[in-house]
Every structure is written in structure tokens, then in C-alpha cells.
């Protein structure tokens, strides 16, 4: 079983600070982490390896700094990793990102599964997983919540959809994007950390993979960001304190007025 997990390094968002003048994110002092939703993909891959044998390779496109993310994934139990990094990749939208990652994967030989996170917490599009699957012409299950069976060149999965779940069967190689329900990510181990520290991670640029220059980075991206701005920061409205029977009734009156005025009842 050869499994490839594309992971993205993202800013730690638990304390996002926005610059109110420029409307951009303040990145100074913000730690970089593996996209939290990619941890479920990593865990899924490691579990499959433990059960069926094989190898898990992580792949990331990003700056040199993203080597940290790859090493952390290896410390969790992935076998090796590849970083796709070059100034020519900068400014990629999801089309160009999927293009480079898909071609990076093609260069790695045969594989059985590509497992992506549902979405990255910064760009937030959830388009790169399906994009990679499309470039590689793979069958795809998005929002995958469980792997039911794997064997005989097939995988059966359960995916979370509106109002319930769907079961799909796909031939291998196949692509998945996964949701939190699929696994409970483990922490990196000390042994894993030591292994990751010593490991040389190959850094590949456009010269190392089969890509066309005109498809890379900002030039290769069909979309353009016109502007970025901050939505109205707060709508802090009325606050009512319940202290006794009387204020309790007043509070509920307020909610009732609100519901009636806005026609929710």
C-alpha cells in the first residue's frame, strides 16, 4: 500500500490578528503549523499502513519553512516526504497548486491512495483535494468519514453528505478528502522526532518535475485576488443579566420580541 498525503503549512489561527488598516493578517509572531484538518489525513494514512503494510509519503508545496510541517508528519509516523518549493510557485491559486502537487505526485511512481485534508484553515477553499484528483484522473470521495474495506484493488468508503452518509466503492488508485470523524490524530513520538530530524527531505523545483512554466504561480493561476478586507468586526448587541425571577422573565421577553420581530416564529 503506497499512500501519499498532501499537507499544507498554515498560520496557527487560534489567535488571528488582523491589521485593521491593511486588512491583512498579522503574520509576525504567528506560529506555523500543519493544517489541523490534514492531521486526520495523516492519521488515516498511518493507520492503513499499520494494517496493510506499505509506505506513507507526505508532499507539500510551500516555502522552505514548510519542511517543519513535513518533519512533524514524519515524527507522527509517516515514512518520508517531499517539498515542492520555488519562487516560481508563489502566488498559486487552487488550480496552479493542484497542478504542481499532482505533477509532483506523478513523479513519484505508482501509488494506491492520495489522502487530503477537507480544507486548509487559511485559504479555506477545499478545492485542492478534488483538483489533484482531477489532474491525476482518479476516482474521488470527498468528505470521507470512514474507510469500510480495502482489498482486491478496491476501497469502500463512507462519506458525510447532507442528511446522512453515502457509501462508495472505488478502484485503486483513488483519492480521498477526509473529515475529522475519520480518525483521532496521534501525537509525534520522541523516536519519530529523532528520525525526522536526521532525515534529508528532497526539495524539488520546476526543473525536477514535469510541469510547464506557463502553468506555474501567479501566471498560471486563472483567479486573481482583487482585494482583501475585514468584515465588520463586532455586532455586540444588547446584553441582559439574569439575576432573579424578574430579570429571567425580562430576558425571555427580549428573546421572544427578537424572534417575533424577525419572523422566526
Amino acid at each position, binding site marked *: 500500500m503506497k499512500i501519499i498525503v498532501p499537507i499544507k503549512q498554515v498560520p496557527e*489561527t487560534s489567535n488571528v490578528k488582523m491589521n485593521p488598516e491593511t486588512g*491583512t493578517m498579522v503574520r509576525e509572531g504567528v506560529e506555523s503549523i500543519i493544517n489541523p484538518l490534514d492531521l486526520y489525513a495523516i492519521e488515516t494514512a498511518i493507520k492503513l499502513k499499520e494494517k496493510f503494510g506499505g509506505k506513507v509519503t507526505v508532499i507539500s508545496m510551500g516555502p522552505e519553512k514548510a519542511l517543519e510541517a513535513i518533519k512533524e508528519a514524519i515524527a507522527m509516523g509517516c515514512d518520508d516526504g517531499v517539498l515542492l518549493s520555488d519562487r516560481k510557485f508563489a502566488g498559486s491559486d487552487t488550480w496552479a497548486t493542484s497542478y504542481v502537487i499532482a505533477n509532483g505526485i506523478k513523479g513519484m511512481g505508482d501509488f494506491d491512495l492520495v489522502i487530503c485534508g477537507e480544507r486548509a484553515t487559511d485559504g479555506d477553499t*477545499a478545492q485542492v483535494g478534488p483538483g489533484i484528483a482531477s489532474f491525476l484522473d482518479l476516482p*474521488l470521495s470527498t468528505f470521507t468519514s470512514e474507510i469500510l474495506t480495502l482489498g482486491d484493488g478496491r476501497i469502500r468508503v463512507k462519506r458525510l453528505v447532507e442528511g446522512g452518509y453515502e457509501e462508495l466503492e472505488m478502484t485503486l488508485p483513488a483519492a480521498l478528502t477526509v473529515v475529522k470523524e475519520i480518525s483521532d490524530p496521534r501525537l509525534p513520538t520522541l523516536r519519530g522526532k529523532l528520525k525526522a530530524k536526521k532525515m534529508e527531505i528532497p526539495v524539488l523545483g520546476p526543473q525536477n518535475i514535469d510541469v510547464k512554466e506557463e502553468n506555474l504561480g501567479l501566471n498560471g493561476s*486563472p483567479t486573481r485576488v482583487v482585494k482583501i478586507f*475585514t468584515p465588520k468586526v463586532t455586532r455586540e448587541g*444588547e*446584553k*441582559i443579566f439574569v439575576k432573579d425571577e424578574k430579570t429571567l422573565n425580562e430576558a*425571555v421577553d427580549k428573546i421572544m420580541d427578537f424572534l417575533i420581530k424577525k419572523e422566526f416564529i
Partner: protein
Amino acid sequence: MGEVWTLAEYRHEKLSTVSFELLNRGKSLSQKLNVPLASVILGSNIKKEDVQELIERGADKVYVVDDKNFKNFLVEPYANVLMELLNEYKPDIFIAAATTTGRTLMPYVAVRIKTGLTADCTVLEIEEGTGNLLQTRPAIGGNILATIKTPNTRPQMATVRPHSMKPSLPDRNRKGEVIYKNYDESLFKAKSKYLRFIKDESQQVTVQDAKVIVAGGRGLGKEENFKIIGELAELLGGAVGASRDVVDRGWITYPHQIGLSGKTVSPALYIAAGISGAVQHIAGMQTSENIIAVNKDPDAQIFHLANLGIVGDLNEVLPLLIKRIKEYKAKEASKNVQ
């Protein structure tokens, strides 16, 4: 200039209402550009009334592909057929709902035809002068809004957040053109097979489709207390949401989780009870139109987002609220009888 297209979603042999929300959006774009508005519908045993309804709700044209292979959604055949349609008719704009189907199909197609796709948009406008589509979407957990365009390739593709616009209303006299298309068997080949749908009874109203969401957090204290959340949700015709904390405790299942590692929602009303308002929770609900928070901690973060904040014990506030809504409804009902 090409047409404006919307994807009509046909699931479990029913046309979903997001299809009409898209028509409402599409109409303002097609009128501005002075081009026809068309819906594409892919399905199996598509009912004539459903096609007619798309016309009544604003479509000038409907492209129908009715094939037994389209009984259930599978991305490969859907993408193959859509690409044929897009290559033949070359619309200028193509929008779909940001549902599990739209978010799977649209990126798969956009990659193949090399065009731009903007995710989960809440505002679509036409740029003066160029006629380009300006697509605005929340990113980084709703902390910023980005306006994006696709200047050089066509169609300009976008997924649109469900409920970010009202469905268009029907005009029973409206006329339109229906174009039936058939495609070669080879386009329906897939390396995937649909096995079955398993309905989740706890999702009578799903959080993605709900106009109202009543969400509970750790402040509920114990699993049983989720019952009052469910009761309130039902009274308001809404869905039950939850924080990750209570999902991890097993008080409720994962499909109900709202937030960074759960669902992103923007209902007309979000009631948060016993939820502190951690950034990862807020990331999934801060674009809700109205927010009511009930929390006993006056400094809880959730109050910064709330239009109405009740500082108090949810075990007192919610049961009384439920009682009062029931009384109100009974009174309204008896009024109507008279």
C-alpha cells in the same frame, strides 16, 4: 457574451431549493449583462414539473441530461458530461451551490477546462466596464473577506454558500426553452460506484440546510440536556448544532459539529447555548445573520458576536423560552381559527 448558468441540484429524485437561490443570484447577473439565464440539470427520471419550475423561477433555458447513470452523484461522469456542455455552449459564468456535490464537482471540472473557481461565495457582482464577475468570499475562518475574479478564462466559475440568498419566486406564466441532451455511454464510465445512502435520523434538518440553528456546548452540563436544544430547534423549525467539545464527549454525533473542524454555516439565526465562543467555533458560524447567545459567563467571547446576549443559566432560560414559544404558537393558532 455567453450565457449565465446555474447548476440545478437533483438529489434523491428531488430538485433542491438551493437551485432557486442560484437562479435568484443568476438573474441579477444575467440582467446586468443582458444575456440569457440557464440552468443545467443532471439526473435520472427528471420530472417535467421540476424542469418547468426552473423556468418559472427565472431560467430562460434549461439544459437537461436525463440518464439512468445519473441516479446518484458520482463525480467522474457528472464532470465528463458537464465538460461537454460547457465546451459546446461556452457560458460566461457558471455557478453551483457550495454543497457536498458542488464542492466536489466544480473543482474537478474547473481543473479540466483550466478556468478559475472561487469557493463558497457570499456576494457576486458584475464589475463595471469589464463585465467580469466579482466574487466575494469569507476566508481564514470568516476573519477576512476576499474579492476574487477570473479575468482571462471562461466560464468564470463559483460555488455559492447555501442560504446566502433567498430562493427566487415562481411566476407561473413564465416561458422558457428546454434543451434535452443525450450523451454517449462512454462518458458515463466511472472508476467509482455508488452503493447506498444511509439516512441520519438525527439530521431531520441538516445544519447546512437550516435557516435556524440551535447549538449547544459544554455548558449544557450533561448529555441529557441536549434534549432541550433539540426541542427548541424543532419549535423553530431548525437544526441542532454543537461545539466540538460536546461532540468529542459523545453527547451528539459529528455531523452536528460547527466550526473549524466541523461545518461552516450561515443561517438566518444561530442560537448558541453554553458555548464559550472559541475562535475555532466562531470560524464556523460568525457569518450567521443573527446570533443569540446564552452563557452564564458575562465575559464569554461569544457575546462579542451576539445581537442579543443573555447572561444566565441556560437551564433556566431555555425551558422558559420553550414554554413561552409554545404559548405564543398556541395563541397564534387559535387566532387563526377565529
